[in-house]
């Protein structure tokens, strides 16, 4: 399994390099309205001669061998500036420390119900967040703590929701899986696997309807990718050219089931092929690769070309939720990813190697983050329980 994972990452890198050459000449394309894109496509269908006005459509018609996966998948990994490296480091570390704390507090009985940790996958949300702008929206499933921290939601409010306190984002009524911040563009936090995919499609529809250039990131897992509504959404999104990036977080497992035991086509970047949605496989442990791919995908959507699929090759270090001892995989498998591919260690190593930061500076960052997390933990522990009258607020009567 691990070998497959590593190969997946390597293949993603390779593909990246190869294809960046192949598509260099169609990297930029003018923004266009859906109407013109659509009519362009119709023209192409009518007469196979490529229409220069729509290179994407032209390529679809002209080169049947080029799958959309291949088409979409090129975003050269660019070096980060010192500021970018440090920002990514900080954000990923915040998520890591937050999740470790949540795990501890769950162990102490302060958190009940489900608690799905994001440890190991930090580079995905942090890299994607670096690729979007204010006004863009994010929606995901139940493994949502990292997404909320990355989008700038308050660690205190998130942790207090986990402990079921009145200071939580949903006053304790939502719990770990269900939190929202419309202000920050975070639309949840959904417990039903796959639901967020169509919801994200609808958010993108609203962007298109309003004529703004915002993009929605709809995150879901490798397991969720086998839900029917995912494909209903893909079809609709491409048909209507909706600005949604489907970010598939392939962490190799859906609960206790490894990807290959559940998926006939385990290359999720190809899941949009029959809908003509471009897709790319990305090394989701390298925040730079995530940002580069995210940037490309988001631009594609912003310019009115329709949806985009990004398959993030990543890995969750912990069990599916806090109650899962993860006996379906070996300790060695986890250890190998941790030591060889850890997303945070990668940045740390680069920062030090390139003398962009000293051990001391990094220690200080770590200290600052621990402080933020400890304060959040204190808040989430001391904050009062919700008033019983909250049972009757925000209910439909």
């Amino acid at each position, binding site marked *: 399994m691990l070998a497959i994972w590593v190969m997946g990452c390597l293949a993603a890198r390779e593909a990246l390099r190869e294809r960046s050459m192949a598509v260099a000449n169609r990297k930029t394309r003018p923004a266009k309205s859906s109407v013109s894109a659509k009519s362009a496509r119709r023209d192409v269908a009518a007469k196979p001669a490529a229409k220069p006005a729509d290179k994407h459509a032209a390529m679809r018609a002209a080169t049947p061998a080029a799958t959309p996966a291949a088409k979409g998948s090129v975003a050269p990994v660019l070096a980060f500036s010192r500021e970018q490296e440090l920002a990514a480091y900080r954000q990923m570390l915040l998520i890591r420390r937050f999740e470790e704390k949540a795990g501890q507090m769950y162990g102490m009985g302060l958190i*009940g*119900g*489900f608690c799905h940790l994001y440890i190991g996958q930090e580079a995905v949300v942090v890299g994607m967040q670096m690729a979007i702008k204010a006004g863009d929206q994010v929606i995901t499933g139940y493994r949502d703590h990292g997404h909320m921290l990355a989008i700038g939601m308050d660690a205190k409010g998130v942790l207090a929701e986990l402990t*079921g*306190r009145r200071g939580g984002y*949903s006053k*304790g*009524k*939502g*719990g*770990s*899986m*269900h939190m929202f911040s419309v202000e920050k563009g975070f639309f949840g936090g*959904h*417990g*039903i*696997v*796959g639901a967020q995919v169509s919801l994200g499609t609808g958010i993108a529809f609203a962007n298109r309807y309003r004529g703004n250039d915002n993009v929605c990131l709809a995150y879901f897992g490798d*397991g*969720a990718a*086998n*839900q*029917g509504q995912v494909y209903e959404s893909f079809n609709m999104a491409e048909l209507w050219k909706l600005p949604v990036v489907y970010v598939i977080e392939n962490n190799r497992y*859906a*609960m*206790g*089931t490894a990807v290959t*035991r*559940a*998926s006939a086509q385990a290359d999720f970047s190809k899941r949009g092929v029959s809908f003509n949605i471009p897709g790319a496989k990305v090394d989701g442990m390298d925040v730079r690769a995530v940002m580069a791919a995210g940037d490309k995908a988001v631009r594609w959507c912003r310019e009115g070309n329709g949806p985009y699929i990004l398959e993030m090759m990543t890995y969750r270090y912990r069990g599916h939720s806090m109650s899962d001892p993860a006996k*379906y995989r070996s300790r060695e498998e986890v250890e190998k990813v941790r030591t060889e591919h850890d997303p945070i260690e990668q940045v740390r190593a680069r920062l030090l190697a390139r003398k962009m930061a000293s051990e001391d500076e990094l220690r200080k960052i770590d200290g600052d983050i621990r402080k933020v997390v400890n304060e959040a933990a204190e808040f989430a522990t001391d904050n009062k*329980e*919700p008033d*019983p009258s*909250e*049972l*009757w607020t925000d*209910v439909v009567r």
Partner: protein
Amino acid sequence: MAELTYRDAVTRAIAQEMSRDPDVIFFGEDVAKPGGVFKTTVGLYEQFGPRRVRDTPISEQAILGAAMGAAMTGLKPIAEIMFSDFFAVCFDYIANEFPKSRYMSNGQLKCPLVVRTANGAGSRFGAQHSQSVENWAMMIPGLKVVAPSTPRDVIGLMAAAVRDPDPVIFFEHKSLYATKGEVPDGEIVDTLGSAKIVRPGKDATILALALMVPRALDAATRLKREHDIDCEVIDVRSLVPLDTRAILGSVARTHRVFTVEENPRLCGWGAEIVSIIADEAFYDLDGPPVRITTPHIPLPAADTLEDLVLPTPDRIVETVRRSLSA
């Protein structure tokens, strides 16, 4: 006799039926190799092999559709939907396909399948993983609906469900999985549509289902001890078919009836039973039927709030006492 957990009773029930009939197959998400997220099906994969016990992708529609497809040809699938809340994801099969096939095909098609699912609250899972949706199933003509409260009944009712020629929705309760009970050795087979008087009494009838049964029993003990009120507790067990004879018989003896329901109040199963009682036993009643339910609101995640919404022994005691002294 052996003491068994409700959880292990599920495994034993499925094993009992699979050993008996090679047409019984079992599949669902994480049920085979991992043994179920609630560890209710540990060992079945090892015992019956990958041909008969399968892990599926997270594809509820395909799970139920395939179960019905196989059932139409005579296989007897047991399909697991991990949480009953997810019925909403695959409701077409539950509402339009299973229950109508026999009727629409002029009796040619049968749908001998069982959908088992983890129902109910108590685990702080919040609004999308804690619901009691037995009333969703009960409302559809063409389905049978059971919800056992003890390990013994898990086995007996599962056997009855598997052997039944019609689709049966089998609600297990998450908060009962760890509970234990005596289970006789050998094969256990019950009949669908039979309620059980789990505590005889003369002053009032309390009707309960699943997790509410132990709570009703607890309340009945306290009502007797603290208030000298002698309640008869009936475990309804099967909502469709419904054992109206047992229910009406009890009401005729006690003249008062209370329902204890975990489903939300509006259109809960007790509403239907109370309506039947009003129709058929109105003059047996000495007072209005009273429903003790979860309020008609989504379920909160926070433990303090969740504990407030489900009917508790305290609430049952208080309600019964007040109603009888009024």
